[in-house]
């Protein structure tokens, strides 16, 4: 599904990712943990194709295609989804209209038939209900005036509608209370299947308790410095990142 090979990424000439390797197979859920500023969001952005994030070395392959050759919208149509750490507000643009336009743009790019508004509304309402979000959010502008938690849940609604092959969730759990966290975890679990993969970026063990990751990686200083199973997350929760960073420094 995803193969990241010796990835080096610079922003404004400053190297942020420094030789990152990662492979995610179909149906797997990988957690990425790591201290602030270690490059987790950078990884998400570079995968989604944000301008200014230059790959200076290495590659990201998604289903055998080099992502670096693709525009952000083409990556989305190919099945890549990024839930933003800070979802963006778009004043005046109706949330439902935005999501339907996005879905139909993707379908069109894949040569599939577009969805009509009735079918669309039905599925969105269902997703909103599952995340205990109010229907009125559909009529409001995209993320405008949404609470922090609503914004995060709105990302999960978008993911549920767009049905990506690989979803990168960047700290979707940050700022959520326990109940909302559960809803988000359920939203992710509902979508899990043998074909769909997840990269879940998080600081906390508590989301992972609900998700049972197949692999946990620690990103620090622009590299994956440790990988393991879910017991790694538990250890990090107890001991913090410092012991790993000390080990890495020695190595």
């Amino acid at each position, binding site marked *: 599904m995803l193969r990241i090979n010796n990835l080096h990424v610079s922003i404004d000439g400053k190297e942020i990712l420094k030789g990152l390797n990662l492979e995610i197979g179909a149906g797997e859920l990988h957690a990425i943990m790591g201290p602030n500023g270690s490059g987790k969001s950078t990884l998400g952005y570079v995968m989604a194709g*944000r301008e200014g994030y230059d790959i200076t070395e290495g590659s990201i392959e998604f289903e055998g295609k080099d992502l670096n050759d693709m525009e952000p919208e083409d990556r989305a149509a190919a099945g890549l989804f990024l839930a933003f750490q800070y979802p*963006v507000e*778009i004043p005046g643009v109706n949330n439902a209209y*935005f999501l339907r*336009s996005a*879905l139909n743009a993707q379908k069109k790019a894949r040569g599939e038939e577009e969805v009509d508004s009735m079918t669309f509304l039905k599925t969105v309402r269902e997703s909103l209900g599952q995340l205990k979000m109010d229907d009125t959010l559909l009529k409001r502008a995209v993320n405008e005036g949404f609470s922090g938690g609503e914004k995060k849940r709105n990302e999960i609604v978008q993911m549920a509608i767009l049905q990506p092959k690989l979803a990168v969730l960047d700290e979707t759990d940050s700022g959520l209370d326990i109940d909302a966290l559960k809803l988000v975890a359920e939203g992710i679990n509902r979508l899990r299947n043998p074909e769909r993969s997840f990269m879940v970026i998080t600081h906390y063990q508590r989301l992972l308790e609900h998700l049972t990751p197949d692999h946990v990686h620690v990103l620090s200083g622009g590299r994956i410095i440790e990988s393991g199973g879910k017991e790694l997350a538990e250890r990090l929760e107890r001991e913090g990142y410092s012991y790993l960073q000390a080990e890495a420094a020695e190595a």
Partner: protein
Amino acid sequence: MSQTTEQVQEYIQQRYKAGFYTDIDEDRVPAGLNEEIIAMISAKKNEPEWLLEWRLKAFQQWKKMVGPNWAHLKLPPIDFQKIHYYAAPKQENRPKSLDEVDPKLLETFDKLGVPLHERERLAGVAVDAVFDSVSVGTTFQKELKEAGVIFCSFSEAVQEYPDLVREYLGSVVPHTDNYFAALNSAVFTDGSFVYIPKDTRCPMELSTYFRINARDTGQFERTLIVAEPGSHVSYLEGCTAPMRDENQLHAAVVELVAKERAHIKYSTVQNWYPGDENGKGGIYNFVTKRGDCREDDSRITWTQVETGSAITWKYPSCILRGDRSSGEFYSVALTRNYQQADTGTKMIHLGKNTTSKIIAKGISAGHSNNSYRGLVRMAPRAESARNYTQCDSLLIGKQCGAHTFPYIESFNPTAKVEHEATTSRIGEDQLFYCRSRGLGEEDAVALIVDGFCKEVFKELPMEFAVEAKALLEISLEGAVG
């Protein structure tokens, strides 16, 4: 890769779909501006003596005036003697009905999306179609007459309702008002006239489509709308012109009179040819639009979507004379390439408890310049008057400019004026967010711009909101990247 001129032409055509020219024999007066020419125009229109005198007075006045000198518009000198002030398709007799109109003209309006013949005309919208200096026809006249509403060309009004015209002409915009209003008063050719009787709700939308076709001409139309007490009318105007390398002048005057409790809603979708990507050609659009809330509780709403013209100079205004009268101004002005727009409004509060609201959205792309200029004046008598102004500018790219010039004059301590202004560049983060969801770059820009203009679009009648949206999308093609 090199493209043939034809391909390039075709591409530009797609951008400005109304850029074609109709080859038709025209009757025109010689180029030049003098008393003889004015008398010729008046004679062609078979006008009464008083109207010719009024024109000549305006001309005397105009000769004494100097053209405006605006800080934020670069305006090359205009040679007024080179313009033909009257050009009209040749015809033996004035057509008495739309069936007698030259098929070429009907075809032109068809192509512009404003079919005039009975079978295809837009339901619920009566249209007056003005081609260069004359109106070629007005739809639904009979139906409107049954409701007591008068909707006809200005020339027809002068013949059929001279007393009404005489009573109201120049009563809102005097012939001495400003340089271009004086010029218009001297040489105006056609336009629309609307009269809504007491307590009447006009049963359909009224609309005028202005088309400039002939070379070396200008369009100098005049529109007059009178709404008697308790009446309501929604009026729209649209306009286009062929693509040419030379600039053409459009100097119109619009006067609105709203009596007690009357409401006039006046909407404009302005799409004059804007010139090419190097700033060559395009219409100079110098327009005086003013509404008089003459009596208590009257209301005037201006809504405009301005995408065309090389230069736009236009400030639809409200004089809030009656107590509790209210004025609104909703505007979207988009400039790209080398377009310049200096537009805004004036809200003159004279009566007690008068209210006004201004929502102005400026979008600039390319090398264009977009200015909002607005005046809010609270006169000494304007007890407890209120104004709210919001001006937002959106910049696309790095070479364009946006400026806001709010003028506030308050002579009454109980009056309240609120002003908010924002300027933002189209957000890279917004664009990326949209694209990461699968929207192409141009669709993303259109979506963001559409959201930015939302408050204004919702004031437009439905069909026109759709048209305005499409127009913005076409205008924005290739504006980013």
